[in-house]
């Protein structure tokens, strides 16, 4: 059963509609998905859900995506196994450079192109398998 091996995804976006669309689309593709609507909630779900892939919006009130990414990557027990994909409206050189600095593995640009989103998730899932 191919579905059984799909990694768990955590979608984080303060815009509920965005988060839910991404969630539904990925669920339709067979991924187990959880959604969080703030940085704080994302960190809490990160511990309970233990996702393998996190789709992380950068501009959120409170703890922004940069900070959340850094904290996730530093997590003592599951910081290493997680792949963080930044979701961003920015497509500038220095944004990507900053994403690297915080430990992110990939990024997708807004507005979200859903088939592209799935391709990005797929290649990160493949990278996870390669590492295992």
């Amino acid at each position, binding site marked *: 059963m191919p579905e*059984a091996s799909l990694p768990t995804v955590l979608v984080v976006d303060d815009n509920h509609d965005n988060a839910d669309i991404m969630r539904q689309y990925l669920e339709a593709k067979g991924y*187990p998905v*959880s959604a969080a609507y703030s940085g704080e909630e994302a960190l809490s779900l990160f511990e309970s*859900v233990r996702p393998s892939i996190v789709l992380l919006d950068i501009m959120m009130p409170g703890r922004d995506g940069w900070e959340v990414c850094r904290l996730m990557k530093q997590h003592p027990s599951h910081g290493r196994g997680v792949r963080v994909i930044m979701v961003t409206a920015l497509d500038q*050189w220095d944004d990507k450079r900053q994403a690297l600095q915080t430990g992110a593995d990939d990024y997708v640009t807004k507005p979200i192109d859903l088939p592209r989103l799935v391709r990005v998730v797929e290649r990160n899932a493949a990278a996870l398998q390669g590492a295992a």
Partner: protein
Amino acid sequence: MKQPVILTDSDDPSIRDAAGFLDSWDVVVRRDRELAAAVEEVADVRVIITTTDNPNALRDIVDRARARSLAVIVGCASDMARRRAIELRVDEWFLVPATGEEIAGRVRSALSRVAPAAAALADRVERFEYEQMLYDHLTGLPTLPVMIERSRALIKERGEMIVLYFNFVRYSKIEEIYGWEKLDAVLETTAQAVREFLDASVLRSSRVMVSFTNDDDFVFFHVPAPNVAAVTDAEITDLVPKLQEFVGGRIETTHGEEIASLFEIYVGRAHVYYNPKIRLQRLIYRGIREAANAAKGIEQRERGRRVDDLKRSLRERAVYVDLHPILLAESRQVYGYEALARGTLRTLRSPEIMFDVAAEADLLWELGRLCRSRAIEAMKTRLTRGEFLFLNVDPHDFADPQFSQLDQEVPDPSRVVIEITERTAIKDYPKFRERLSALRERGYRFAVDDAGSGYAGLGSIANLEPDFIKLDISLINCIDTNFIKQNLVETMVRFANDQGAKVIAEGVERAEEYETVKQLGVHMVQGFFLHRPSENAVARTGEHAASRPSDTIAHVGGKT
């Protein structure tokens, strides 16, 4: 007092083990459908562990548990079950089979989740953050606040304590050159090595703790155990070079000679005596400061010695050149060589250190001249097939009045590529460009080194109109699994193609990295993967293996 109860529908012996780990909790087993009812009937339940694969039953259990603020943990036999558990937002889950220890851990974390609801979310995140501050996530070592708290009782009991301050110099350089991922890996190796070393040293029997303070320093508290004499100063002095050797050796075997040669440790020490009139915390901080100053003092003295070494090296021309091949990505044919100058003296082996010392002693021009002339000698004698010579030139060097003598020495300027690093700030841009174009007219080509190392983007590179763009090592390290790096390199290649420049990937260490950069359209590659003596590339190019340092030392014949 009655023990808390784990209510479960499973006979899994690991759950009994877990109860043991949790300070002898009780376990009550209720099969299948009876479990949900038991949630309300059994007294003192704190946690429910279910292995049911019936979604309705699970929902029922979760609802009843929520009403009573009990934690629900699901033992999942399949990925489906796990997915369902996550959707129902159970407090924790584990994959069956799990050890008792893991289940106990899950119970603890589930308990921390259930009790307080919404308001506690922020608290939990904050605690998560604070916990990270107490232990260094790379090394697992306690940080300073934890150490101070723990040493309070010890120092009162014993009346004295020795603070050792280990100053690791140039770790920031590693980050600058190779990126933070490499630095993290090196720090981890360092911490591991230091711990192993101390466990086997005279400090073993004492009660000690180690910690990072600001990422590249360790503080080490030595509180002698009762009935054991404190370690003497002589013993500590004796320990330091051995520690340096041990840690350096470990770094070399794990991360290679290049990184190991950057590395130095200085150790300062201070005694702290218990004084009931002064707050202990202040005493300890004072001790740490004193030890840190002592370490700095040693470093200063060592620097003075280095300057003497450098002056001697300049006098005796004790610099040799390593030639690192640059290969065409597709064919792996040698295109040129980058000349890397190294001091013949052991203390100046690393070019970074050598140039740092020169900057401090205001001898940059002198060192630059020597390195250039050594590189050109190497070009004349060893680059006999018309290969390009890639020559590192600091923007500072262009101002050297003797720089124009380069022409008299260089046999063929069109075979020389001058590398300028993006890292050095160029102060007088118009003047600098003027100098570049003068050199360009005489036939020299240019490469921008460490491109993409900063946030500056492509504009500053375009300004220099380079013929070659050498990508920063941090972009290449693990590029095969990082898609952001791939994207940045792709952008750079497109940009270079527009500008008519060639892109060189430096620091290619693994086959996967080589394949990735080749696919991204990078024109040339340079790195350990391609010129290790055992590699085909070297075998094919035969005598080019002469770029190994052992041969080159013989060639230069400088005194050591």
